[in-house]
């Protein structure tokens, strides 16, 4: 956490959040099957920071974002936005708060209304959240289009007339349109070429400086994560296994999973690549997570202790917490 963040009060607090999905039974006497997509996670989000979430596909990143906003109703736990509990709010109160917390969804195609032109979509978003009077909206729309590198005449087009990356940028423009305080960016730049991606990342950083915007940034692209984040949180099978200042995490990852993850980054310069740690063993399923440490089935250092007892998240170094029985031994 950068120095000045610690003194600030958190803008968003996620407290022991759980999100379980119960699956349809296939046979009458079968026991209930539960996907523990998010299984008791805690973190704070400070104003003006970028916290990234990384982790294996299916570990619960998108679900975390969705349950914060109650797009899926959380099973347990609390989420405080400026001290107010989102899960306890009425639908109406929640609608007001949603203007402050925007999401850029992972799947732009599924999240854009196919029957609305981009103009209608942006206009509607601004109208619902009452951010600008109608006569000022046109100028704002043109500005947004320019920000995300789309031509102004594209305002009259429908979502299916765009390429994947163009659609993703429409999602970004829509999120920015209502001047939110927090943006949850779920793989928000993954479909963009590196130049446009750079342009969007620069824009996000600039807006962050100007308006103290806060980002919860979900991404698989670790070079992007490294560039944009202040802090990084690593998830594994519904749990947080490591959370840290960016530099500390990239320079000195403590969890064996994080180490494997960082070693697998593809690089353009094939001579610069280090030893790749290939994880062996069974990839566990959230339908039946392993007992003890959830990573033990694939961890090269696992012992009996790991197979029996679940490690808790402890702050091993300043602002660097990890959930691994042997993190200390392994780091020295």
């Amino acid at each position, binding site marked *: 956490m950068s120095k000045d963040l610690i003194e600030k009060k958190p803008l968003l607090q996620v407290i022991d959040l759980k999100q379980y999905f119960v699956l349809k039974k296939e046979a009458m006497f079968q026991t209930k099957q539960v996907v523990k997509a998010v299984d008791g996670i805690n973190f704070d989000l400070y104003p003006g920071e970028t916290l990234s979430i990384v982790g294996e596909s299916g570990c619960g990143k998108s679900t975390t974002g969705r349950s914060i906003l109650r797009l899926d109703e959380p099973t347990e736990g609390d989420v405080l936005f400026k001290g107010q509990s989102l899960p306890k709010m009425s639908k109406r109160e929640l609608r007001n708060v949603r203007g402050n917390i925007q999401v850029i969804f992972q799947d732009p195609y599924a999240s854009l209304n196919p029957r609305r032109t981009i103009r209608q979509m942006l206009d509607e978003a601004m109208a619902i959240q009452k951010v600008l009077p109608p006569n000022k909206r046109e100028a704002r729309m043109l500005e947004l289009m320019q920000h995300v590198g789309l031509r102004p005449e594209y305002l009259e087009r429908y979502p299916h007339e765009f390429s994947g990356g163009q659609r993703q940028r429409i999602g970004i423009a829509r999120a920015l349109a209502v001047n939110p305080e927090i943006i949850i960016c779920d793989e928000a730049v993954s479909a963009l*070429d590196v130049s446009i991606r750079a342009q969007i990342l620069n824009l996000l950083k600039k807006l962050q400086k100007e308006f103290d915007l806060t980002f919860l940034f979900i991404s698989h692209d670790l070079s992007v994560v490294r560039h944009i984040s202040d802090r990084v949180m690593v998830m594994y099978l519904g749990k947080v296994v490591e959370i840290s200042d960016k530099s500390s995490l990239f320079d000195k990852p403590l969890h064996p999973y994080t180490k494997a993850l960082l070693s*697998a980054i593809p690089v353009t*310069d094939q001579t610069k690549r280090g030893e790749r740690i290939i*994880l062996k063993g069974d990839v566990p399923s959230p339908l039946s997570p392993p007992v003890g440490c959830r990573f033990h089935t694939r961890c090269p250092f696992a012992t009996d202790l790991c197979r029996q007892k679940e490690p808790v998240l402890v702050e091993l170094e300043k602002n660097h917490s990890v959930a691994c029985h042997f993190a200390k031994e392994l780091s020295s």
Partner: protein
Amino acid sequence: MMNEIVLEVKNLKTHFISNKGTAKAVDGIDFVLRKGETLGIVGESGCGKSMTSLSILRLIPSPPGKFVDGEVLLNGKDLVKMSNEELRKIRGNQISMIFQEPMTSLNPVIPVGEQIAEALRLHQGLSRKQAWDKSVEMIRLVGIPSPEKRAKQEPFQLSGGMRQRIMIAMALACTPEVLIADEPTTALDVTIQAQILEIMKDLQRKIGMGIIFITHDLGVVAEMCDQVGVMYAGQIVEHRDAKDIFNNPLHPYTQGLIGSLPKLYEDQEELQIIEGTVPSPYDYPEGCRFAERCPFSTDICVQKEPSLIQYGDNAKVRCWKYTNEWQDSLAKEVLKS
């Protein structure tokens, strides 16, 4: 045997025609793909990569899309001239495609395992039971745990990366001769990505599958591809051996692209970008389509369209800088000033 040509695309053009005008989304694409080879395609968002691949499979919605010109030769036979019946047998069988946005091509209300099994029954004539077992096996292969259970789930119950892997499983199920993979690993973390790339390479070694790999991830290009085509505004602007392009990009657009990469090992306040925006596909300029944004552009660039020329033994580039006319144009500019 490995260097037999399996797919050849000649002067492919697909336009979108509406009351707003004609958008030249794919505007004269040429390439060859050999057996066992991977051709990477990179380029600016909206430059026509997905439309090129959809055109190859003749999956462009028409209208508004219109196939304007070109040939697509699969083992010498032109797909353009084939009947719909013949094409259906080829799609998903000899050529298959991993679509960029899984939700656009998965049926939202059918369990994912069922969708893979259906393709297997259709193309490989497997029985219901065999097809289901193979489908579960494919889901296991792409690294999704509890495949028997996952196979029975509907797309919305899966994570983004799982849906993408379902698409991959479906595309690989019938061991195609040509695989067109449109951003197949964008939703995958690096460890699973590495695993998926390995599966593709493995199939490639076994059956000599040719792969067209569309991606924004230049690291993946470096690891996966033999050749790279860089696209800009509906055309290929540079065609290279993958090993050469990073150290010595020729086209100014490629140079800009590589310059925009965030550096993994150093901190940068601001990332380098390519200033300006792509020209509208409804209204391309007369000269070089990159001229407006190009740091090197001169008179000739604005006046005349460059063609894709051979440069050295292994490179092709569409840029005046690498021609004799360039020197003349520079000389004229000097005279003027």
